[in-house]
């Protein structure tokens, strides 16, 4: 089984600050980490490798500085790492990124057929959750998003069964391979790599591919040129500083507390009062109308 995991190196958002004047993100000195959601994808892939054998290839598009993220993935037990990097890729949005990653996966597929592609649910810097589905569409892979559990893989039937978290419940889905899965957070826990894996990772050579090696066919589809997304404005949401209030509750007199709460709501949220007043007026109006009919 050949599994490809797409990861992204992101700034540790827990340590990011926004410049108070220019509103730009201050990245200086902020450590880079593997996108936390991608760790669930890596672990899911490694667990399948434990079960069925084969290899896990970890793939990223990024600047040369993204190499440590790939090495880290190797230290967990991934077998190979590919960094797709090219000056032309700078400024890519999700459309251009999915094109580059899809091209690279196609190239990997020619070396060793790919059965499964994993990504995290989304990244913590872009939060779009678009790249995984974009790759699936481009490669015509079956797409399983927000997967919380891999239930089983039937190699003979070339199919996979997963649980998918959906609004109001869990869907059990089955589809054929090859497929692309985006893993939900909390679905597993990344392993603590063994000492030999750590040594292998420390010495491993990351394969570095430029646009030619990655098999990019149309350079108009990469980087800033291939990115129709326009960032119109970046702003810091103003903090919502509403103080919590306490209402005394006397068990003997619950009506008082209810009345106090209602009074507060009506004062704090004028819209509610307006709506209530309107409803009352309407009722009164219709009642009056009804009376007239009688």
């Amino acid at each position: 089984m050949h599994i490809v995991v797409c990861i992204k190196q992101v700034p540790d958002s827990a340590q990011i600050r926004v410049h108070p004047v220019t509103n730009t993100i201050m990245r200086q000195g902020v450590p880079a980490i593997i996108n936390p959601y991608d760790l669930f994808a890596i672990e899911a892939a490694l667990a399948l490798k434990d079960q069925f054998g084969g290899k896990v290839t970890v793939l990223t598009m990024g600047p040369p500085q993204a190499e440590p993220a790939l090495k880290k993935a190797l230290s967990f037990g991934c077998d190979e790492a590919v960094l797709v990097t090219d000056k032309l890729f700078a400024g890519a949005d999700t459309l251009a990124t999915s094109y580059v990653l899809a091209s690279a996966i196609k190239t990997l597929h020619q070396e060793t057929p790919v059965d499964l592609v994993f990504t995290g649910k989304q990244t913590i810097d872009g939060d779009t959750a678009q790249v995984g589905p974009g790759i699936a569409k481009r490669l015509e892979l079956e797409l399983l998003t927000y997967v919380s559990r891999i239930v089983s893989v039937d190699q003979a039937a070339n199919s996979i069964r997963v649980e998918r978290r959906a609004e109001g419940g869990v869907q059990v889905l089955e589809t054929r391979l090859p497929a692309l899965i985006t893993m939900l957070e909390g679905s597993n826990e990344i392993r603590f790599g063994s000492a030999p894996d750590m040594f292998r990772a420390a010495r491993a050579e990351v394969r570095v591919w430029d646009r030619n090696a990655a098999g990019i066919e149309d350079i108009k589809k990469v980087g800033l040129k291939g990115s129709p997304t326009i960032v119109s404005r970046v702003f810091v949401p103003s903090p919502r500083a509403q103080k919590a209030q306490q209402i005394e509750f006397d068990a003997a007199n619950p009506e008082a507390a209810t009345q106090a709460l209602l009074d507060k709501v009506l004062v704090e949220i004028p819209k509610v009062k307006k709506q209530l007043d309107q409803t009352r007026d309407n009722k009164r109006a219709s009642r009056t109308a009804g009376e007239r009919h009688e």
Partner: protein
Amino acid sequence: MTQNIEKFDVIVVGAGPAGNAAAYTLAKAGKKVLQLERGEYPGSKNVQGAILYADALEKIIPDFRDSAPLERTVIEQRMWVMEDESYVGTTFRSDRFNQMPGNRYTIIRARFDKWFSEQVQKAGALVICEMTVIALLRDAAGKVIGVEVDREDGKIYADTVILADGVNSLVASRAGLRDDIKPAAVALAVKETIFLPKETVEARFNLKGSEGVVIEMLGSISQGMAGTAFLYTNKDSISLGIGCMLSDMKAQNTTPAELLEKLKQHPSVAPLIAGGETREYAAHLIPEGGYHALPELYGEGWLLVGDSAGFVNAVHREGSNLAMTSGRLAAETLLELGEKGLPSTAANLARYKARLEDSIVLKDLKKYRNIPDTLHSQRQFLSDYPALLNGAAHEFFTVDGQDKATKEKAIFNAFRERRSLLGLLGDAYRLWRATR
């Protein structure tokens, strides 16, 4: 499934200045070196003021100035003896420090250690982070033959193990190579890195270009405990910290955070950091037990270097230079043994101690061997004298119609009242003895 990891010439535990100096020197000479660091990256766990003393590093990497991330060249050294609202100070500022290759630099350790580790890796050592050594491996005769790490299949073998794992040296303590550290032998230091625009730093301290200032402080700021404080200028930040003996903090029930907060509010310090933004808060233990507290420095197959050996000169605020020097000397000892075809037995590793005794490391520690005891038993040096000195200065520099002879007499009487004539003479003698 047990996989064997190949054997190394030397395993260095820890990627601080001592470990890096040892690993670099050995790898550069062609030895097969493995360096293990428990932190996420080299420097992630390391804390220092921080001043880099060029000499120690120059002897390891002569052209370090070309690539190392240095903040500012120290051209001015201030020494403040403080009272609650004042200080009496000395300043040495010399443009000569600008003319020669810098002698001392302020650095930010997270950046510096990363750079140092890159040099170690370029020299050919294998550096692995996020791997914690939990035990030493020994043969039947008790000789250390490798380490065991906190991961599956984690036994790794080597001819010699250099322990550079810092002040706690959990590995050495656990292996019974040295005692656990005692509260009376370590200082607990805390510091904040306070960011200010580069121009503000330069204006407040009268600096141009990459010039920097160091202020060492003692007196009432340590609230009678044995301790000192510091302020260092970086490019666009100020490192401000204070440290006191752990045993004193325990006895006085004081937290380091309180001390630092008071220091920040001191009228002489506050204007220097006003408007700055604290972006980093760090705390660390410093082995300040001195010469008398040194553990065994070597044994069958192992060596201690840097903080784990207790190489800190508390009087001169030197530690990282002694760490680097001891790391280099440990490496040179092993290279010498290698050339002569000698194994890493305790008898042969005794050459390491001989090298230390012949160097700044043990010479300086020996010179100040009685300082820790003197400061512990003679509190007047850190409480009475700073107060007297500041009182004297206030008296002397207040022009109020009183004649100077009367003022001098009043000052002398204040000293005599607080310490008595014999006490004063005794203190002078004690200070001379302790620093002789």
